[in-house]
Structures are given as C-alpha cells and as structure tokens.
C-alpha cells in the first residue's frame, strides 16, 4: 500500500504504524461525571465500517506525523490523508 502523505507525497505504507479508528482523537474528559461510560465507549466500541473509514497512521519511519487517512476497507482505496494535529485542533 501507498499512503499519500500531505507533506511528502506517496509513501510506502511500511513506513507507518497503524493505530485504528480516528475517533480515538475524541478523548473524553476524565474529570467529567460520566467519564466511566464515556471512556468505555471511547476505548472499546468501534463502528468498524465496511466502506469508508477514517483511521490513524503514524509515520514512524518518516516524519513522525500522525495522519488521519480516509480509506475504503472493502477496496483499500485511499480517499484522503491529513495531518492529525491539524484536524485535532
């Protein structure tokens, strides 16, 4: 696979480490009253779609950027890639 890095262009996916669903960006507030439920859902439940999936890849053997890659899990076609740091803001 090749990942279209927003700064570096097409890169061998082997340079990256995969984490999973981009929803992991939305970490709940640990001090909130409903934290227990929120963290359970945040940490364990996944949409796991057969189709378009926003997911986190770390450019470990590259520029050390975390990317959000939008990829079709049925065809592996990659539709978009962005810097997670920008998206998280």
């Amino acid at each position, binding site marked *: *696979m090749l990942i279209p890095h927003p700064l570096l262009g097409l890169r061998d996916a082997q340079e990256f480490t*995969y984490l999973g*669903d981009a929803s992991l960006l939305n970490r709940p507030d640990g001090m909130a009253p409903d934290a227990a439920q929120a963290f359970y859902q945040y*940490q364990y439940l*996944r949409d796991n*779609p*057969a189709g378009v999936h926003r997911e986190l890849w770390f450019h470990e053997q590259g520029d050390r950027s975390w990317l959000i890659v939008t*990829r079709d*899990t*049925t065809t592996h076609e990659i539709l978009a890639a962005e810097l997670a740091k920008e998206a998280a803001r």
Partner: protein
Amino acid sequence: MSTVRFSALKVVAEALTGHKGWGPLWRNPDPQPDYDYIIIGGGGHGLATAYYLSNTFRQARIAVLERGWLGQGNIGRNTTIIRSNYLLPGNEPFYEFSMKLWENMEQAFNFNAMVSQRGIINLIHTDGQRDAYRRRGNAMLLAGADAELLSREQVRELCPFLNFDNARFPIKGALTQRRAGTARHDGVAWGYARGADQKGVDLIQNCEVTGLRIENGRVLGVDTSRGYIGAKKVGVAVAGNSSRVMAMAGMRLPIESHVLQAFVSEGLKPVIPGVITFGAGHFYVSQSDKGGLVFGGDIDGYNSYAQRGNLPVFEDVAEGGMALMPMIGRARLLRSWGGIMDMSMDGTPIIDRTPVAGLYLNAGWCYGGFKATPASGYAFAHLLATDTPHETARFLRLDRFERGLVIDEKGVGATPNLH
C-alpha cells in the same frame, strides 16, 4: 436428507458398483416461513452450532443462513491448527473443552475431518519467555490439558532442521502440547453440515441476511435475499462481519475487522513433524496430509474487509521462515489467501446474549477461531437452547470490557491489531 453411513466397507462396495449409491451430502432446501432457531452464518461456527443444537440439545426447526456456499467463512481459509495452550482461566478451560470435542468428533458425525494430533511446538528464545511459557504450561496442566517444557536438545531431536545457532534469536527450548495438531478445515465444515442436515436442519445457501426485524426490544426474524424468515431466536455467527450484522440491530461492538494472510507451498515429501511456532519471527508452519507447507504470521495490521492483503506480509513471514528453518528456502510458495478476522479488543471471543431479546452473538474470534469451532458451536448451542452460558464460556461476555474483566492473553490492551 442423506442417511448414507460412511465407512471403509461402503467405500469398497461403491467402488465396485461405480459409486452410484452416494447421495448428496446435504439437501438444498428452500427457506420455511419461520423457524425456532435461525443461525446466521454457514461457516464453521454456525454449522457446528446447528449440529450441536440439533444432535446434542435435541432442538428442531433450525435453519442456517449462508450468504454464499457452506464453509465459505474462515473455516475455508485458515491454517488448520488445533490446540489448547492458553494461559488465562477465561480461555484455557474453553479451548481444552474444544480439544476434547476434536478428539471424538469424527466418530460422532461419521465424517473424517483428518484430525491429526502431531503436536505443537512454541519455541523459546529468552529466559523471560521461558518463565512466561512455564506459567502458561502450568496453567494448561491445571486445566486438565497436556503440556511439556522441552530443552534445546529435546527440540533438536524433534526438529533437527531448525536454525539453532546462527539465528538472530537462538532457540533455548520450547513449550509443547502433544495433543495439539491440525484438522482438514473443509472436512470439519462438511462433517458438521452433513450431521446437522441429517437431523433436519435446513442449510440454506445463497441466502444473505439484509436486515434484522426487531420490535419492542425483541427479535422477530430476519430479512434475507430470499425473503423474510421469522424466528424465535437468532444466533449470529459471522466472524469477520460481526460488526456489519450487529449494526442491523443498532449495536457497536468491541471488534475491528482485519485481514490475516496465510500461505501454502507446493506439495513436498513430509518434513515438518507437527506445528512449529516462532513467535520472535512472526512465523508458524505445519505440513498438510497432501504435502503442502501451511504457514503464516501476523495480520496485515489495518482494518479490512477485502479478504486480501499485501506484499510486505509475504516477505515478513518468509523472512521468519528462512531465519528459523533455512532448509525451506527452495520450497515454492504456491498460494496465498486472506480472511477477515473479528479482532476483539482483548483478543478473546464473545459468546453471549445481547441487549436485544432473542438475539445472540458469537464473535470476536481473532485468528483463533478454527481451533475453537467445536466448543464454540457447543457453547453457543447451549446458550441458545438453555439461555445460560456453557460453564467453559461463562467469561466470554460482552460486558467484560465495561466492567474491567477483560481476558487479555497477550497483555497489549485495547489494540486489536496487536492481539
């Protein structure tokens, strides 16, 4: 339905009379308007569930709905390893129960699935690993399974062809389970299918479930490509696609779908005694009764429903193989395949009720589903028939994540692609 009894005598008789007497292994029934039990998924676990539900728990009016052909799931696409060498109490008794079922299955369903107990060897490369394997081996014995710790020299006697000294990770010994081994994966599916069909279970192929009818929190039946079918109870056994089916019930699961590739070499005269696993090198191998080396390694690591993977895994697995047993270098990799794995958040499966009354879930098998097939079917049938979990499956609950009762054999946490 076929009532032919298989035996050597029957084979001889048929041979002499031109094989005219062999009937269909199972019928091709049309769906009835409704059933007491519908099992979604005609893979290994679904067929085993139907088999035990009808043969052991004496239930009737059962249908198995399969989107494609029977055994199309991961039962038709795996490395055929059977073993019960787990560490944790949530797992080991369940897999040992499965192993005991393997040991008597063929006589039970009168079909030779070529269960072959030639043993599994888990290689040890460091002292820390030996400590961990010792703890695991003892856990196996405490659960009534068999286990032995082998010295480097004992491993050498069993597998003289391994790379003991020049490898990046020298071999210091092994944990072995002699009752482990392999089985002919398709044969398992066919044996259960035939056994279920003989008890009147409707095995309905080319019947894709497109929706779950749920009213007031209770399941009423399923919409399929062959029309609506009513059911008192619906069991979902579609590992790989669990999230897709349960989404029809509005549920999100602690599961990601990943692709696992595996490989087989051209047929070779037998050289590998049993199953050998090389954890440090992401490589495991056995040899089929046809002579093919059956081997694999890690999952590709990204979510996928594509049932195919990529080149780096070919290379990674082959590197491990070459480092461990350089004598396989000139064997040719003949075919690869990729299956969709239900990777659960703690690497352990789920057999449980769901918040929807009458809807039951059998999922999250990661890449260990094949060896679990008999126990999974038995335990799921038990749950469907009695509404209580089978004792060996009582920890495989859906709420264990919320309650902090995860069963994490590898100790890597909620990272599905590391389990």
